[in-house]
């Protein structure tokens, strides 16, 4: 089935697509499929850019994913919303880092370090 381009998707569909990509990323990580993960990373960037381009910066539509069952979905939603909800996102990064649910806890911890050092500058 042909998938709509991001430009043709509703915000709801973009959030759904973001979630699907994160779940696929989780599988790629579990199987050590780095090339697949990196392709999925690029796919997710396209979805985020589309949400950002929508009027009012609709990346805030990802905020409900903070409560998703899957840790990879939560982590990616948090990192994607650092620019639009910095305090809430940072708090959630800390929660994930302290969850000991790896590898997401490891990435969340490193993101906190990188934010503090000014290496990671969400835009």
């Amino acid at each position: 089935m042909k998938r709509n381009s991001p430009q043709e998707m509703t915000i709801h569909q973009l959030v759904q697509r973001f979630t699907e990509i994160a779940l696929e990323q989780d599988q790629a990580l579990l199987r050590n499929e780095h090339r697949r993960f990196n392709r999925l990373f690029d796919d997710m960037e396209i979805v985020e850019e589309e949400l950002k381009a929508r009027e009012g910066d609709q990346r805030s539509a990802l905020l409900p994913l903070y409560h998703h069952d899957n840790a990879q979905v939560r982590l990616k939603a948090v990192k994607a919303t650092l620019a639009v909800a910095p305090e809430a996102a940072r708090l959630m990064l800390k929660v994930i880092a302290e969850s000991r649910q790896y590898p997401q806890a490891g990435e969340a911890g490193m993101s906190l370090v990188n934010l503090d050092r000014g290496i990671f500058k969400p835009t």
Partner: protein
Amino acid sequence: MAHQEPRERHRTQQVVGRVGGLDGAYLDPPRTLEALQEAAASGSKAGYDIHHIIEKTAAEDDGFPRSMINGPENLVRISRYKHWEITSWYMTKNKDYGGLTPREFLRGKDWAERTQVGLDALTMHGVLKR
């Protein structure tokens, strides 16, 4: 056995399959740098790998001497699965680094910066106590 969510059960099965049994390696509590370095110096052990704090191949590619790369200060012994998790983190694209992998981000960086990232990665993946 305690109740596990499906995803956790999957991960446990992976650990069992990959490491050859839940012999405690993956569940080790964080240890000091000295303890991890001493363990590396004492040799190999089932379920564990010798891990380079500064990635070996990337450091070789950037011209660092092998005496530094394989020196005792750069070697720690950690759970094999943790070793894979950290290596995986180095190899996957990351928003923190503008979409580069950490390995790509560190290309051309000095020893001190690589050490800082290497130690942070060990800490944040629950291996190193600081």
